[in-house]
């Protein structure tokens, strides 16, 4: 059957177990914020689930997880989250390929993965934030963006600066958490999912 290369790659990743994992990944993304609040950390932590799926299964299933996370956000509480679906998906692809290329083997490498995810996230979300939302997204980071904008930077620079501060911490911590979780999974489960 004629399928596009992307679809074929996605299908190759996706066994039933992988598909059944996606909702759990999305739920973990969803709960990341509440968990951060529970320990009083001003972070988003909304890609832990995507990263776990990226390491366990592969980049394209992680992309699906990321994209669907924002769709579910949109369908339930925040319609304004929908434009960022592709950003979340791109994070999944980045982390997935890095994981496949062995970048989850040591703690320092995982930090690098976090930085890479932060860069991808920043570069892709900044234009959306500026063009669609005028620079503000209704979250805590808006205060930081406001500060930068009011001290003489144009709105794009303000958004990029905000992201540059917040994103690396967020993504590095998420990558570390994802790595710890995967390492603590029973080996049997890890191989069941695919990449292992």
């Amino acid at each position, binding site marked *: 059957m004629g399928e596009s290369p992307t679809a074929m790659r996605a299908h190759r990743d996706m066994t039933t177990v992988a598909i059944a994992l996606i909702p759990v990944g999305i*739920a*973990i993304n969803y709960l990341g914020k509440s968990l951060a609040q529970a*320990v009083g*950390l001003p972070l988003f932590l909304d890609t832990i689930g995507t990263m776990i799926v990226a390491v366990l299964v592969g980049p394209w299933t992680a992309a699906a997880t990321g994209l669907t996370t924002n769709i579910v956000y949109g*369908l339930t509480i925040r319609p304004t989250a929908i434009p960022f679906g592709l950003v979340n998906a791109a994070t999944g692809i980045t982390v997935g390929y890095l994981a496949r290329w062995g970048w989850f083997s040591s703690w320092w490498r995982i930090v690098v993965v976090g930085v890479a995810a932060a860069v991808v996230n920043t570069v892709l979300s900044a234009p959306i934030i500026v063009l669609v*939302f005028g620079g503000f997204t209704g979250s805590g980071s808006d205060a930081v963006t406001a500060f930068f904008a009011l001290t003489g930077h144009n709105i794009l620079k303000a958004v990029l600066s905000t992201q540059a501060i917040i994103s690396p911490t967020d993504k590095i911590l998420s990558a570390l958490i994802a790595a710890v979780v995967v390492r603590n999974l029973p080996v049997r489960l890890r191989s*069941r999912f695919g990449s292992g």
Partner: protein
Amino acid sequence: MPSLSSYVPRESLVHGLHPVTKLVYVACILALAVVYSTPAPLVVLLLATCCVLLAARVLRPAVRIMSRTVLLIALFLFVVRGLAEPGGNVAFALGPLAFKQAGLDVAMLISLRLFIFVAAALTLLLTTYPPYLMAALEEKKLSPRASYVVLSTMQIIPMMQARATAILEAQQARGLDTRGSLLTRVRALFALVGPLVLGSIEGVEARAMAIEARAFLVHHRRTHLYAVATSSVDRVLMVALPVLTFAFATLRFLVR
């Protein structure tokens, strides 16, 4: 089983419409919001979408959601971009704070568009039961796997939220320190996420087997539990809405 959604069950014309009709409506409203770039027609458009929300009897929940999400953004936009926009003339001043016209214009435009988008989206989301939406999309060739993922997620999240609370309380009962130094808090985070995720992932295998046993992967025509009906109103709207949108858009470009 409680499922996560913003669906508000009411009896209204909009509730009875086919989900795809409502999707077409959202697309049309979005197109018009992009086409118009001055405040006046956008305000009219916003009022129109609010009238539809009123007709659907979901205006109050919609306003509640909009004030939670878009209002804050609008506030920041007016204040920050009003003050910070480079160049241009001053619209008015509050003491030492000079609000620039250009900044206020941008803020107005973006805020209106955001309100319109959310209002239109809520018209769909508040009046459509998620399984109906998914069933309707599957009729239009959406993959059943995608619809499974979305619906399953909506059911899992409340369950996992409850588990997360239980884990938090259990860990705190074991002396987990969730205040204190930064490092302590980060360690606390690991102690919370770990059990939550590990427990959930272990259930995934069982779920996968359950859906496979129900012929999940079979590429065959499925019979749906929910039959989503298309009424004559739907058929009319699905043609009328795009046509009207196209007409308004063309008008706007001709008049310019």
